[in-house]
């Protein structure tokens, strides 16, 4: 129970990546520069978010998304006092004011906005509470995180960090065989698509950069985003023959195996 740290060292993008890959359920709480944000997840999908004291009632979100007129919004505020968001949502759909899709899209937009705000925080403590679920009386959505992660990686400007993430441009890329990694669900920019079109274990990252006329920084940033979203992996380029590594004092395969077996026996006996 120790998923906690500082955004300085562990970015929101990396957190989303972790939540996505581990299909986590729970709530991420981030204490930012001036306010606290909560983002809740179910099975690695964003379900709900709120930030500071911002009014995140359904009525207010729909109003801000121009799905409710000022007049409608006023009436709901006056008369809908006891109603929770789920009840209100049903009522509005039944009354023909909004469609279910309007509601889902407006919530997506609103939650995305909160996550985008988080991307701009460079400092702040975070913790992930497994036990804390999104509130029952609120409408929960199921948003894939890949797009948010790619978006977050676009914010990454720090050369040094990118250098850390991708130390060698002489490695190649391959598409991840992780189930659920699907390029079709991701909104890639034109630049990103150009890189994607060259991904092949035979092409080094440097070759892709040359082919797409990108600088080291540009290619690193794009590759980093694709890696963070779990779409690609770094691999050793195919077909490169390495200088013969003198790992063993002998060339003979059987002697080499015997040597490793002796090592195993010895370590077991320690």
């Amino acid at each position, binding site marked *: 129970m120790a998923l906690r740290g500082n955004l300085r060292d562990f970015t929101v993008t990396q957190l989303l990546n972790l939540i996505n890959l581990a299909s986590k359920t729970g709530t991420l709480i981030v204490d930012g520069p001036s306010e606290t944000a909560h983002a809740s997840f179910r099975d690695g999908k964003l379900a709900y978010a709120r930030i500071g004291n911002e009014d995140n009632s359904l009525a207010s979100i729909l109003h801000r998304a121009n799905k409710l007129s000022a007049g409608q919004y006023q009436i709901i505020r006056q008369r809908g006092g006891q109603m929770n968001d789920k009840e209100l949502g049903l009522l509005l759909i039944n009354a023909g004011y909004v469609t279910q899709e309007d509601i889902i899209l407006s919530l997506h937009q609103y939650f995305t906005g909160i996550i985008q705000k988080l991307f701009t925080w460079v400092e702040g403590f975070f913790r992930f509470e497994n036990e804390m679920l999104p509130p029952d009386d609120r409408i929960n959505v199921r948003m894939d995180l890949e797009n948010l992660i790619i978006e977050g990686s676009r914010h990454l400007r720090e050369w040094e960090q990118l250098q850390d993430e991708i130390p060698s441009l002489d490695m190649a890329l391959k598409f991840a065989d992780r189930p659920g990694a699907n390029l079709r669900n991701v909104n890639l920019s034109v630049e990103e698509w150009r890189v994607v079109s060259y991904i092949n274990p035979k092409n080094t990252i440097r070759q892709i950069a040359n082919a797409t006329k990108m600088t080291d920084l540009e290619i690193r940033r794009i590759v980093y985003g694709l890696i963070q979203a779990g779409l690609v992996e770094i691999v050793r380029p195919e077909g490169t023959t390495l200088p013969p590594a003198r790992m063993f004092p002998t060339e003979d395969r059987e002697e080499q195996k015997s040597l*490793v077996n002796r090592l195993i026996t010895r370590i077991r006996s320690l």
Partner: protein
Amino acid sequence: MQTVKMVVTGPFSAGKTQFIGSVSEIDVVSTERKISQGTERAIKESTTVAMDFGRITVDEDLVLYLFGTPGQKRFDFMWEILSEGMLGFIVMVDSTRPETFREARSILETFRAYAPTPYVVAANKQDMPDAWPVEDMRHALRLDSKVKLLPCVATDRNSVKTVLLELLYSILAEMESGG
């Protein structure tokens, strides 16, 4: 006399010197220096500056050397030299310090680029209450499910043995599949 070597690498203060010390039959020939100032001083008092060096005698014809790399970035010119001809490598990660995970990944990628040898990742200091769970670390470190990520307590010899054995099993498996 034949010799083979393995490399123990990882970020500053991950437990590399401790790991080697727990199994080496000689006192680790360590190049520790007192840390004089800065944020690293708050974490510990001395650090490895060139390398650690440990030894396990297998039999009269064979010796295993364990090399530990310096953790501080400014000594990374040593890494490539130390990695030459290694049988495999171990990346140590301090499970209690997520702020070092990014660097651990970077070190891992750097070593992978040096040589196509097998490696394992040790999630060290699992005895500490604020250690991250191993499966969360797998995702944070972006390790494929095929990569061995092993819980580790470097102060415990049995734990260190397990990590070394897993690396050796991987080396053997690689030889058998490679023909």
